[in-house]
């Protein structure tokens, strides 16, 4: 056992998928030309008044409910004051005194073991703009694009309940799935929709007392967060083993060098002088409103799993695997709607589809074989038009090219042969060519019988109906 163990907590920033910003009607669409989705409000012009986007508040309530938080009845916005060029008002509107959701939890599955992670709070705030650095070497200026400034964010703050990189990964994945499930964000990390900050301290293994906490910002993917946890754990371990102290500080992840770097303390003076924003009035979340949001909550993973078991008669194992991600569950439901054999489709999902997605590292939406195509393959097996073996080939081809499986079967002449006359011909040929095997079968060797069936299937290039082959061969060799 190592002498020190990490204690890890997360702050996760989620950009909500509202049409407009949190305090003005500017669009939140990603990828627009710089400074074209801005107005006097999100540019921080003097004299403007922010007005809250109702949808953003509802999405935050939804998130808080999904994370089992208590909902604060009277919630407010506060100003967090600091200077940075991507923040045009010189303060960020956030929630400090009355977070919208508090004291929640989420269960994560760490390699088969369920662990509960406590959520300290869920609150709303606005995103900052983007700083672009000119590519001219030695340039002493930065460029600012404020399209993102004012995009609604939900920040999810966990307690330091995670102890390993595996747990951290499970936590990040669970949150991402949950947020996709409740449809508050598309969580596209490559567009910065989901961003992580971790805090890490070390303690003597098994001890209760926590060490000094270091915060690391600027983590734009799960992979980066994991690399950062590994690096920071080693850095702090080395410090402690040398008898030195860990400083409480905020560090930045430097992707190029794969290390964390201290921010200059002068620039991050943690003195935000929060105070209630006088431009924004209190939000009263009544019980009725809360109930309304709860009633319209999209189906959560647990409920979906239960429904898969009841509606499709699937084993718990299948249902758990298929509902682990919303996009996979949706793919499955579309396939199951197209052909009524839910268990067979589940088997194909668990073995073939999930493997392909994993190997290619893509989402179901980007998989060339559409759910209806998968359903068509299973239907052709069920109708005895193709064998299971041929189906695997058809699947591989369709998964590569996106071609219609029915069309592949027709174009390549893969339809199963159920014509007894044609199969008899192959059976007789095989018997004539393999007198030794026939003798062994007559002597009672069942293994050889199967080998002989294999010979016949080979002659048919996999197209003979295996059941008919079996039957005919048995009748030929009494």
């Amino acid at each position, binding site marked *: 056992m190592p002498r020190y163990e990490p204690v890890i907590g997360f702050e996760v920033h989620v950009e909500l998928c509202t049409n407009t910003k949190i305090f003005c*009607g500017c669009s939140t669409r990603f990828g627009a030309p710089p400074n*074209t989705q*801005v107005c006097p409000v999100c540019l921080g012009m003097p004299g403007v008044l922010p*007005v*809250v986007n109702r949808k953003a508040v509802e999405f935050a309530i939804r998130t808080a409910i999904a994370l089992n938080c208590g909902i604060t009845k009277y919630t407010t916005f506060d100003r967090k004051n600091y200077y940075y060029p991507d923040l045009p008002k010189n303060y960020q509107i956030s929630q400090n005194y009355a977070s919208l959701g508090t004291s929640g939890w989420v269960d994560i599955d760490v390699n088969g073991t369920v662990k509960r992670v406590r959520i300290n709070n869920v609150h709303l705030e606005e995103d900052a703009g983007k*700083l672009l650095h*000119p590519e001219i070497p030695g340039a002493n200026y930065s460029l600012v*694009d404020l399209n993102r400034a004012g995009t609604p964010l939900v920040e999810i703050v966990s307690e330091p309940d995670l102890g390993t990189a595996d747990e951290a990964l499970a936590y990040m994945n669970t949150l991402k799935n949950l947020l996709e499930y409740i449809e508050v964000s598309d969580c596209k990390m490559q567009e910065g929709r989901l961003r992580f900050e971790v805090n890490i301290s070390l303690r003597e293994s098994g001890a209760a007392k926590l060490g000094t906490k270091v915060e690391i910002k600027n983590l734009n993917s799960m992979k980066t967060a994991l690399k950062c946890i590994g690096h920071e754990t080693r850095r702090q371990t080395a410090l402690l083993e040398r008898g030195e102290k860990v400083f409480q500080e905020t560090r930045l992840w430097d992707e190029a060098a794969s290390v964390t770097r201290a921010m200059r303390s002068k620039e991050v*003076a943690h*003195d935000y002088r929060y105070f209630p924003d006088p431009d924004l009035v209190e939000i009263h979340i009544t019980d009725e409103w809360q109930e309304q949001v709860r009633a319209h909550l999209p189906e959560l993973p647990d409920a979906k799993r239960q429904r898969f078991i009841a509606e499709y008669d699937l084993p718990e194992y299948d249902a758990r695997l298929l509902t682990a991600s919303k996009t996979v569950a949706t793919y499955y439901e579309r396939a199951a709607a197209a052909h009524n054999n839910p268990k067979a489709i589940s088997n194909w999902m668990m073995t073939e589809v999930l493997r392909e997605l994993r190997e290619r590292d893509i989402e179901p939406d980007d998989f060339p074989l559409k759910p209806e195509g998968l359903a068509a393959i299973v239907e052709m097996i069920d109708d005895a038009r193709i064998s299971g073996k041929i189906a695997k080939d058809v699947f591989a081809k369709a998964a590569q090219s996106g071609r219609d499986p029915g069309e592949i079967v027709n174009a390549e002449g893969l339809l199963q042969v159920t014509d007894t006359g044609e199969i008899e011909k192959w059976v007789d040929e095989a018997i004539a060519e393999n007198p030794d095997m026939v003798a062994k079968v007559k002597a009672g060797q069942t293994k050889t019988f199967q080998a002989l069936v294999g010979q016949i299937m080979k002659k048919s290039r996999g197209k003979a109906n295996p059941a008919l082959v079996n039957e005919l061969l048995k009748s030929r060799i009494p």
Partner: protein
Amino acid sequence: MNGISPELVRHVALLSRLELSEGETCRFGDDLANILDYVAKLNELDTSSIPPTSHSFKMSNVFREDVVQPSLTNPEALANAPDAENDCFKVPAVIQEL
């Protein structure tokens, strides 16, 4: 009277990105102390039975619907900027790479 140390004045100045001379640091220390003393008069009132509020008027739940409104054009957005380049606001380099 509240004592405001020169260190505290320098800290507040840093947070506000103000550069003060020695003389100013001293003068603002006195000014800030006076202001705090003045506001401290409020402490003479007994407010123990009054719930804290952040607004002087009773109003809640003022919302807008999630409907896109026209934004400014890029030239309009940059019209008041002291400096611009490539459709962006141009600002002095931030020393800390973020």
